[in-house]
């Protein structure tokens, strides 16, 4: 059974010291949660691992759940800049970014509108990563109807050879 760690990506990057970080922000679609007790606040992703815990707020705990399309553009930008600062504080290695182009063909009109806003905000997230982290390589990935299982694979050697070529031309 796989072990599931609760640990910030930032401390893992510092401990593992990878040569390369391959990243995408597709999980930006998952809602975030915030639990507040007085002045203390815990901000997390509402992942399916979190759901398994069956959290129920008790007296004095304020629970809030927010989807990205409920956030203002400014809030998304500010949070993404903090995320990039977190990466910059611990990692100087090479970054490859997978930029997702999503299209949803089988959704209702209402869901489609929400999806368009999510994609609009996600494009800002990628812009901030481009500006702040300056990835060495950017790879476009088409995701149709959220089908991640059907993605065509790319050999890691091909990706890293491309990174090396790109580094030499800079």
């Amino acid at each position: 059974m796989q072990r599931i760690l609760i640990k910030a990506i930032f401390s893992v990057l510092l401990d593992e010291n990878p040569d390369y970080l391959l990243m995408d922000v597709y999980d930006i679609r998952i809602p975030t949660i915030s639990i507040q007790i007085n002045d203390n606040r815990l901000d997390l992703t509402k992942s399916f691992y979190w759901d398994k815990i069956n959290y129920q707020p008790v007296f004095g705990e304020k629970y809030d759940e927010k989807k990205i399309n409920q956030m203002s553009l400014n809030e998304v930008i500010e949070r993404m800049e903090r995320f990039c600062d977190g990466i910059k504080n611990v990692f100087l290695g090479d970054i490859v970014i997978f930029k997702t182009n999503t299209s949803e063909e089988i959704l209702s009109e209402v869901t489609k509108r929400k999806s368009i806003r999510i994609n609009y905000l996600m494009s800002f997230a990628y812009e901030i990563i481009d500006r702040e982290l300056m990835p060495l390589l950017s790879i476009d990935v088409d995701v149709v109807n959220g089908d991640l299982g059907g993605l065509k694979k790319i050999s890691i050697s091909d990706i890293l050879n491309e990174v090396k070529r790109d580094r030499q031309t800079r």
Partner: protein
Amino acid sequence: MVESKKVSVDIFGSCVSRDFFEAGEHPFIINNFYSFISPISLYLPGTREIPDLEEMTPWLNRNYSFDLRKDLFDHIQDNRSDYLILDLADIRYPITCYSSQKGKFYVTNSRMNRNYSELIRNHFGCDEVITNAFNIDYHTLKNGLSYFSNKVLEVYKRDKIILIEPVLAEEYLEKGVTYRFVGDAGATNAFLRKCYNYVENILRCHIIRIPASVTANSEHRWGLDRLHYCDATYADILESVRKIILQCKPVEETKRKICTYGPISIRKIEIENNSQISLRKAFYQSSPLPTPGYSIGKVDLERYEESIAESNIVAEDINKSNFFCAVG
């Protein structure tokens, strides 16, 4: 290699890499000791014109001149020894930028620059701006370390480089009693770790890590400082260096490491069986939006300890973290 044969070494780095040679008998001759120079400063523009430097010792003046002229690697190349002992602790120094009508030049703001700052400003009729090491632009830091590491590799083969990684001690020993330094060195040590990590991956040379629990010594010959360690630490470093050099140890070949973040990254890549790449951690179910900066203080979730255990989650410090799945 036999013990009796003398082995020449150059040192680039802090006092730690000089002081451990005092910890016992050894067959090493120190040819050159380059110090008080930030590797980042060597990547930035310098100046060929230097006023007469007379107030400090010739050794300090020489190091300051290397840093101003950026010709250190010419000297290292012309005076190469058998091994290079490298430590990057001096990267913690701020960088000074002098701007005159002739242009800008940079130098490490270590003790020499603090001493000669007025002389330089008067000579060039220029201003001085000092940037804390933490505030050096991300890409300048990265490019600077990359430039420095590749220059080192032009002179020394990987198996002739020993990278020592000093950290600032949090505690010191005084008359047998351990005390804690005032202030926290955590941010500086994390910064050093980040820089050491990056250089490790470029140089892929011999590495000697100093444990985070290292203790400073108030009776150190140069006085109390977070980098003035107890004798036992120096003895351990010397022993490690002796083993590497006298046993002619080759550098251990390791695979390149990757981590992935996000569900696309892990699903999109294919790692061939014979690949020289190893996947260390794959993160998913983790939005970048709830970054640690948004968590404040401590929210007690102890009542979920049992559920966390049942779901096979290993809780480290939930209050500093994203909540995600990592495989690897």
